[in-house]
């Protein structure tokens, strides 16, 4: 019933989750479902697949997805419209400034400059885009699993 509600709406805001499909991304959409006995709303999550041929969406991104006029495959019903918030690159909606934790990035940089920024410190301007360490040192874009079999091969996603 809840899934039907999700597939009906034209625009959805979902969080990208790990997906092995080549041309599509998987999204977790949060909805509130009414329990008619308790007359209370409870959180439920539905999973929707959206067409993303270039794999622009990365795990954790908050993305606006749009319903396709006709269903593309059995699974893929939507297509990606816009990446609203990339994961780990938070922007304050009121001021439009970048935020880290509870502080503005500019303010942190100003403090660093007063104390004397070190040469080895992290620099936002020269930092490459997200994803350059994928499958090298960062394995957070995939679902890891507990290693259950020793086949002599390297299993990078096994914990």
């Amino acid at each position, binding site marked *: 019933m809840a899934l039907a509600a999700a597939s009906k709406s034209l625009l959805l805001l979902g969080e990208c989750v790990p997906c092995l499909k080549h041309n599509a991304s998987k999204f977790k959409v949060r909805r509130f479902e009414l329990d008619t006995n308790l007359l209370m709303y409870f959180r439920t999550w539905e999973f929707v697949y959206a067409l993303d041929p270039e794999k622009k969406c990365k795990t954790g991104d908050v993305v606006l997805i749009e319903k396709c006029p006709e269903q593309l495959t059995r699974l893929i019903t939507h297509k990606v419209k816009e990446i609203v918030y990339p*994961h*780990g690159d938070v922007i304050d909606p009121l001021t439009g400034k970048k935020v880290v934790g509870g502080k503005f990035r500019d303010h942190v940089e100003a403090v*660093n400059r007063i104390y*004397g920024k070190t040469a080895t410190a*992290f620099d936002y301007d020269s930092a490459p885009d997200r994803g350059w360490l994928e499958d090298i*040192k960062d394995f*957070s874009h995939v679902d890891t699993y507990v290693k259950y*079999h*020793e086949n002599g091969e390297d299993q990078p*996603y096994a914990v």
Partner: protein
Amino acid sequence: MNIIRRAVFSNPLTSTLLICTRSYAFKSNLKIKWVRPTKIPCYDPAKSGDLVPMPEFDKTQFQLEFQKCKELASANDLVKRLFSLEYAPRHRTTQLYLRQLIDGTKRHNQDEGSIEAKIARWTGAIRAMQDLVKRFPHDVRLRVRIKELSDKRKKQLKYLRRWDYKKFEWLIDTLNIVYKPHPIDFRTVTRKESLRKLTNQHCDDIKNDRLKTYRLQLEAEQPDFLQEKIKALEFIRKEQEECNVCVTVTQTEIDDVRQQLRNLLQKRRDLNTKEE
């Protein structure tokens, strides 16, 4: 009741069906060998994700607190040796290592408490303890400290990833840490479940292999099929023209198929030359 049982078991077909569908003590005919993975202890670098161990330090250098001492520069060799790492306890070397790691990541000169400085300090401490645990493998408190600290570091890395992805990537690259998130469902490894997974994998492999061979077979038949198609289309066109009926097959349609055949052959030739 007995009459029914007798009737069921007297029929050979029903008895074999019953044997085939039994789930209890089911034995698979597949020759899948399951090897239980060896347990990685929690204090092992493979578990904590540290790619490099604590390096060997030059023992002739001064301890951290005496490195900027001006008097030592003019002191004799014996005094210099006394203040070097050679005669100092082990934690002096660790102190120097921690300082190096923190200096490599800190934001400004006074920085000690930022998340990158903290993670650098914890990383140094973890690696020093991992080095020590090789000498004292029965020190349980040490093993617990390593586990707790590496878990704490992992938790903070998880938060940093959420707040500032670029900094997270830079930090794990600078400190040489591999970050793997916790699995969604953590289950103890059992023989039964592992064999089930391996059987599923085996079935998938068979399916993919068969699909691949079928695809190759169809692709091999493509040129012959296209030639036959050209012939058939030409024949239909010729017959229609001769019989003065409405011509349904156009010349462009036949040319398109010819072009398709040419492209296909060209593609195959290119592939062959590449392989050679």
